[in-house]
Structure formats: structure tokens, C-alpha cells
């Protein structure tokens, strides 16, 4: 029994055929798994190793090397807030602090599995919209501290009350 669903299985097999070597498929395959499951579980790696012939050491190296891959459970909304130069200059730090406050409050109210997680991200490549953050895959520009409350409410209207 596969730990991947049928759709994901087909997608993985597609990637394995798509590139010149199977190893080249590691990154796309991991993206696909993460899109479905949120994070990459040990059993995923195990199946990639045993069934699809992607060496578990290679996979683990890739997961730990790249920022995007997560090998721990994630929350519903993952905020990646850019803290690089321009974003820093235009107010990333107070905004990050504000998000932290919200997360702490949510955690206090709802326990450890609150709706948001925050990652101070090295760079998001949208300096003309600084400060920028990604909520899951959606880019939010000009996310200054005064707009944070409103922005977060948009994603999780009930929990924030």
C-alpha cells in the first residue's frame, strides 16, 4: 500500500520519467509531495527509496539543504516573511514582531497547533513591494505592521477573535 495517494503516485512517476536521470526528479517530486501533504514524512522518504529508487541519503540531503522543504509537521498557514535588506529598511522587523505576538496569543488560546507558523525568510525577490511575505504560496506585498492584523484576519477570521 502506497503512502502516496493515486494522484500523487502518478505525478511522481511522471516526474521520474520526465528528466534525464531519476535523481533529477528529486526536487519536483518533493515539491509534489509537500503540496499534498504539507511536509515530507519519513515514510515518504522510505517509499521513495524502496519503491522509486531515490536514495534516502540523497533525498535527506536535499530536504535539509533547501529552505522550502520541511521534514517536520507544518501548520495550516505558513508565513514566510522576508527579512532582507529592503524589507528590513521598510519595516520588516516590527511586522515580524507583531506576527509573533499573534502566534503567541493563538498558541496560548488554542494550544500548539495554531493556524499560523512564521519563518523569517532570507529573501523573497520582490523588493519593490517591500516588506513582503508569503502566506503558503500567496505573495502579500507591503505587509507593514499596521496592516498585519487585517491581513491575518483575512486568512483565519475566526481564530483571531
Amino acid at each position, binding site marked *: 500500500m502506497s503512502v502516496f495517494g493515486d494522484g500523487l503516485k502518478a505525478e511522481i512517476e511522471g516526474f521520474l520519467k*520526465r*528528466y*534525464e*536521470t*531519476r*535523481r*533529477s*526528479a*528529486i*526536487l*519536483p517530486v*518533493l*515539491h509534489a509531495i509537500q503540496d499534498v501533504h504539507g511536509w515530507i514524512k519519513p515514510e515518504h522518504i522510505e517509499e521513495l527509496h524502496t519503491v522509486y529508487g531515490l536514495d534516502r541519503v*540523497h533525498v535527506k*540531503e*536535499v530536504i535539509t*539543504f*533547501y*529552505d*522550502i*522543504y520541511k521534514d517536520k509537521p507544518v501548520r495550516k498557514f505558513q508565513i514566510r516573511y522576508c*527579512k*532582507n*535588506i*529592503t524589507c*528590513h*529598511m*521598510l519595516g520588516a522587523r516590527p511586522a515580524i514582531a507583531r506576527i509573533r505576538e499573534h502566534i503567541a496569543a493563538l498558541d496560548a488560546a488554542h494550544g500548539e497547533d495554531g493556524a499560523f507558523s512564521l519563518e523569517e*525568510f*532570507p*529573501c*523573497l*525577490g*520582490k*523588493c*519593490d513591494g*517591500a516588506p513582503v511575505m*508569503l502566506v503558503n*504560496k*500567496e*505573495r502579500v506585498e507591503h505587509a507593514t505592521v499596521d496592516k498585519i492584523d487585517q491581513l491575518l484576519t483575512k486568512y483565519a477570521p475566526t481564530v483571531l477573535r
Partner: protein
Amino acid sequence: MAQDKPRIILRTEGLANPRALKTYIEHAEGYTAIKKVLGGAVTREQLIEEVKASGLRGRGGAGFPTGLKWTFVPQSDTGPKYLICNNDESEPGTFKDRHICTVNPHQVIEGMVLAAFAIKANKGYIYTRWEFQEEIGYLVEAIKEAYAAGFLGKNILGSGFDFDLDHYSGAGAYICGEETGLISSLEGKKGQPKVKPPFPAVSGYLGRPTIVNNTETLANVPWIVNHGAKEFRQYGTEKSPGSKLFSISGALVRPGVYEVPLGYPFERLVQEECGGYLPGRSLQALIPGGASAPLLTPEEVKGLTLDYEAMASRGTMLGSGAIMIIDDRQVLAELLKVTIEFFAHESCGQCTPCREGTGWLNNIMDGVLGGTAKPDSVERMRTVAKHMGGKTICALSDACAMPVTSYVQKFSGQLQAYLAQAAAAGSHVK
């Protein structure tokens, strides 16, 4: 004199539905260049000669002549060769390639077909950073359109030339913007740069000849084919011909991406294109070419033009054209920390001087900001930066060392004062 502000790359900007194939064909001579080349009007040798003659230099940061790079591919080699579009754009401050994907992705694809034809590659990849989710969608859509229209795939326009193009997404690593790091990543490995020689043009992706070109570089090629090297050279300076996209950000009224000829005055870009500084702010320092470029003081900015030579004469670099305005409200020590922390986070960990050097500098900066650093920390940073430069496989080590050196050299007074103040206070806000 040709137009003051040419439209070579962002030709469909401002039009309705700019990304569509139809728009590109109707308004920007779309896919006429490949008709010219694949139709036989221009031979492979002529194409390379034309690009060489245009003086087009790599727009990714290093500024290496593009045509010359193409000639490094061994002609005798008949096996598979690859063309990779470096759309990783990971240098902090840069967002021009992202803008091209948003405005005019087809010109990149057309440029790739031309470049592939020049180096006899039948397979290409566009490698985009994961953070550009939206733009990846645009690119995939554009590739689909191009396939449907017969501009990609087998026997393009009946010429017998095959070129398959695929998209590949990164996963959050600055170092994948380095061409061999990118190749490693494309091979499904950690994005660690490879030791050179051999160079990728001889042994790159899967050990085959591979050319990696920046998105903007490739987008220049169709225009050069259509209009000729001579016209291209009308823009820009003698040594830096053509136009260039500048990503300009910071405390400006209209930050963004602007296409101006190389050699364009910096002050004019700020005032005309960007609408000047935000009210009440003035220039404290300038980062002219992304986070890895040495800083310029307001003094040095006077009379600055935007080209490779003017930057070099001021001891800094144009890089990928990422201009960041540091206004007078910023604390430079904090920005230095942000910069170093970025490079320490992004060092791939292969070469010792970079792995340990970036971490060490970050460690020292923690001490400076936390009030626990020794009084000679600034001097120490200068020494560490000096010795980690120029000794590693790729330039990340230098990319970290150069801004540190320039901060320490040009703004050491501020750093020392900060150090003394933080030490006196005993702590500092995080």
C-alpha cells in the same frame, strides 16, 4: 541618436494582456527572429558573430560576454548539450527577471531557441526560484503556448531543428543562482557549486556541455537578431552596450524595474523614473549591485552612471542591476547584520573559508549588536573578510566579504560608535 529609453526587453510592458503569445507576436516582432535564423537567412556562425559583435554581456551579475561564452562549447562534441536559463534571481535586491516573466516571457523563450540553435542544444531548462510561484505559472503557460504554436518541440518551423524546453523549480537556496550550483540542483543534488575546471560549457549538466544564461541576457538575443548588433550598440556605452533592467528599491516614491540604456545617470533614474526619495528622506548609502556589492557613500554617488565601468572605477560592481537605496533613517550596523546573516544562512557549506567565515562574521555581528563583542571586533571583521575572499569555488565567500569590507572601511565610525554604545548599554534590542 536613437531613442533615449529603448524598449529592447520590456516590449510588451503596459499593453493589455502583455504575457500572451498574441501580444508578443503582434506588438514585439514576436518569433520573427527564429524565423529568420531557422529559415536559413542567418547561419549559426553568423548568429554567434552577431551576438559577439553586439557586445552583449551576461546580465546575471558577472558581465561575461555572451557570444564568447557560447563559443566555449566544444564544436566536435556530437552528444547531447543543454541550455539552461538561469531564472533563479536570488541576489537580494534583484527582481528584474521576475518582472520579465510577468511582462514578456515569450521573448525569453525565443531567446532560448536562438541560443540553443547557436550551441546545438536540443534540450533546455528554465530554472526559477520557488518563491516566484506566480511567475512559474506564467512561464509554464508561455511554454505551453509556444509548443502549441510550434515554436518549441521537434522540427521547429520545419527547419529540422529540435528544441525541448522544460521548467524546473528551485527550493529556496541562493547558491542555486551560481551556474554550477544551479546545475547541481537540476541534477537533483544539493545546490553546491562544482569545482572548476572543467567549466560547464565543457562538462555541465550530467557531465555534458551546458550553457547557463541569465533570463535578461537571453531576452536580448531576439532583438539583436532582428535589429542587428550595430543598432544594439547605439544604446549604452562603448564597453557596456545595450539597455539594462534595473531593480531599484528602498525609500522611493516608485520603486520597481526600469529599462534604461547602460550608462544612464543614477540621479536621473531616481528622479525621473522613481519619482524621487520618499518625503523627508535622503541618501545615506547606496548598494548599487545587490547585497554582495560594496557600498557607495553619497559622495561617491555624485555623477554616478549605471554601467560596468563606472562601478568598477568606484570599487564596486553593477552586478545584476539591483540598486538599493539606504536612506538616512537606517542603522547601518543592523543592515550589515542582515547582509551577513543572509550569506551565513545561504553558504552551501562546501568550502571551509566560506562556511566558517560567513558564520564567524555573523557570530561577531551578534556580539556587536548584543553588546558582547570585543572592542577590536570591527578590525577582526576586516581581517576575516580579507582572508575569506578569492579562495573558494564560487563567489559567495567574496559576496559576503565585499560588503563587509566596504561597510568597515567607509562607515567604521558608525560601527565603532554603535559598538561602544551597545557595550555601554550592555544589551541591544533584538
